[in-house]
Every structure is written in structure tokens, then in C-alpha cells.
């Protein structure tokens, strides 16, 4: 329960409210590559990731898969379920073994009505998500591709970064294709950009893990700062 009480959406709830929240939840596990929800399916369940990583992606009408974001422990997905009668807009797939708490949309709505703090916390989380998507929209519209890739890596580092001896490790399995889809560019461009940064010692990548060796140099690219 201690871990759940630290999750953003349940901040400020007392022990009895948390017990009620947990009693209404079921545990949902997924292996790497297994989907929690599929785009277009009726949205019945709302999830909160406890461990592992989940990738949200969407297939466009033209058939192109676009990675929307990665979900880290403590973050929610499938919130559309609480609105009822809507399909999931994205596919949520575990990229490593994952455990999530799940509630039916109706059950979660009842919890919100009984404990309005959950609703307020949820709004704060969604506001943060909207801000992130606004930033990405601006980047996609205005920035040259190298800045978009730098911003993509910084965003992932902020979300899933971990300090290690060499710098900041983005602690999720991240393919170049994922990064291309996240930043609205091509695999070729991402590969070329990352190779250039690796040569300059700004990042290193191995086994689908990227480490920012010089975070400041990446910020300089992303923010178009003068070269040091």
C-alpha cells in the first residue's frame, strides 16, 4: 500500500480510502510484447502501472505505427475507460514484463465520486500530459529534425532517466524505430543523428538502452544554445 500511496493519482488519500481503492482493483500482468489494450477495442478498464514499461502507440489510417509515449511505473493509461462508450484510442503494449492495477471504468468512477481528491489528482496528471503534447506539437511544427530527436531523448530522460556513473541512462528498451515514430521522423534520420552524437561522445547506445553522456550538449542542441 505504501507504493500505491506515493502514486500521483492517489496522493493525499488516507489509509482507509487507499484500502478501498485497492480492494476495487485487480492485478494485471503482461509479458514483453503482450498488449494490455488494443486500439479500437471498447474501453472497459483503466490501468495504473506498478512495474515495467508500457508503450502507447497508434496506427494511422495510412497504416503507419506512431509511438505516442512510454508509460513509467506510477503513471496511468486507458483513462478513456472512465468516460464510457468510447474505444481505446491507442494500443498499450508491455515492452518488458509489467504489472498494473486495473479498475473497471464504473468502479473507478465510483471511487472518484467517493474520494474527489482522486479526480483532482487525475486532472493534474492529465494537465501535465496535455502540456507535454502541446510541447511536442510545437516541436513538430517548428523545429528542425535534430532538435526534435534531442527533445525526444531529453523527454524520455526526464521521464525514465536514472543517474549512472557515465551520465543519465534512459532506462527503457528504446529502439531507433521507436524514437523515429515519437519524433515524427524516419529511422534513417534517427540513426544518422544518433551516430553523429555517439561520435561526438554526447550519447552512447547499446542493447536498446541510450545513455546521455553529456546531457548539457543535448540540451544545447534541443534549445539551440550557442555551442560551448
Amino acid at each position, binding site marked *: 500500500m505504501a507504493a500505491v500511496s506515493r502514486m500521483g493519482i492517489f496522493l493525499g488519500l488516507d489509509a482507509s480510502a487507499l484500502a478501498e481503492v485497492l480492494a476495487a482493483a485487480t492485478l494485471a500482468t503482461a509479458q514483453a510484447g503482450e498488449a494490455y489494450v488494443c486500439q479500437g477495442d471498447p474501453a472497459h478498464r483503466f490501468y495504473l502501472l506498478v512495474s515495467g514499461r508500457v508503450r502507447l502507440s497508434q496506427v494511422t489510417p495510412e497504416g503507419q505505427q506512431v509511438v505516442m509515449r512510454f508509460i513509467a511505473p506510477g503513471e496511468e493509461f486507458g483513462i478513456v475507460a472512465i468516460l464510457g462508450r468510447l474505444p481505446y484510442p491507442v494500443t498499450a503494449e508491455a515492452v518488458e514484463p509489467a504489472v498494473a492495477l486495473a479498475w473497471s471504468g464504473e468502479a473507478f468512477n465510483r471511487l472518484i465520486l467517493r474520494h474527489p481528491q482522486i479526480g483532482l489528482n487525475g486532472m493534474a496528471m492529465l494537465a501535465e500530459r496535455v502540456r507535454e503534447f502541446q510541447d511536442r506539437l510545437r516541436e513538430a511544427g517548428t523545429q528542425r529534425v535534430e532538435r526534435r530527436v534531442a527533445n525526444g531523448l*531529453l523527454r524520455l530522460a*526526464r521521464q525514465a*532517466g536514472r543517474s549512472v556513473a557515465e551520465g543519465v541512462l534512459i532506462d527503457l528498451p528504446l529502439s531507433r524505430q521507436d524514437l523515429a515514430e515519437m519524433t515524427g521522423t524516419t529511422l534513417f534520420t534517427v540513426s544518422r543523428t544518433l551516430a553523429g552524437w555517439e561520435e561526438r561522445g554526447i550519447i552512447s547506445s547499446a542493447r536498446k538502452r541510450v545513455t*546521455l553522456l553529456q546531457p*548539457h550538449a543535448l*540540451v544545447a542542441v534541443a534549445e539551440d*544554445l550557442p555551442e*560551448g
Partner: protein
Amino acid sequence: MAIDGLTADLRVADVLSRWPVAMRYFMARRMACVGCSMAVFCNLRAVALDYRIPIDQLMAELGDCIAGQFPCEGPIEPAPDGA
């Protein structure tokens, strides 16, 4: 000026949350640290390296700023070597 608890190993985000006035120093030095997403990862030692300022100088100036003695209120000091 040496400030109790201010060390080169402190991360920028911790410095800013503990001494919000330190923001003035980073801005006066034209550093991109305020609002930077990497502020939770970079310590002051890394900042000194990135901006090519001797760490002792950065610590002294930052300490002065926190103590209200660095000329942050007046004209903005250009960073050395255009950094």
C-alpha cells in the same frame, strides 16, 4: 562565500529548490539551468565543466548570490568566453 550545505555534488534542481534565489546566478551567467529538464541529473561540478568555469569560482559566486552579495540585481555579467 561558503554556504552551509552548498557543495559541488549538489544537483541543480536541489540547489534551486533549497535556495530559489540561486536562480539569479544561473540567469546572470546566461546558463540554461533554470527550467532545464536535466537539472535533476546535473550537479554543480558538471555545470562548471559544461560552462567552462572553474568549479571554485562557480561555488564562490553561487555562494555570494545566495548570501545576497553577487551582483545579480545589477547589470547582467557576461559569461566568460561567450559560454
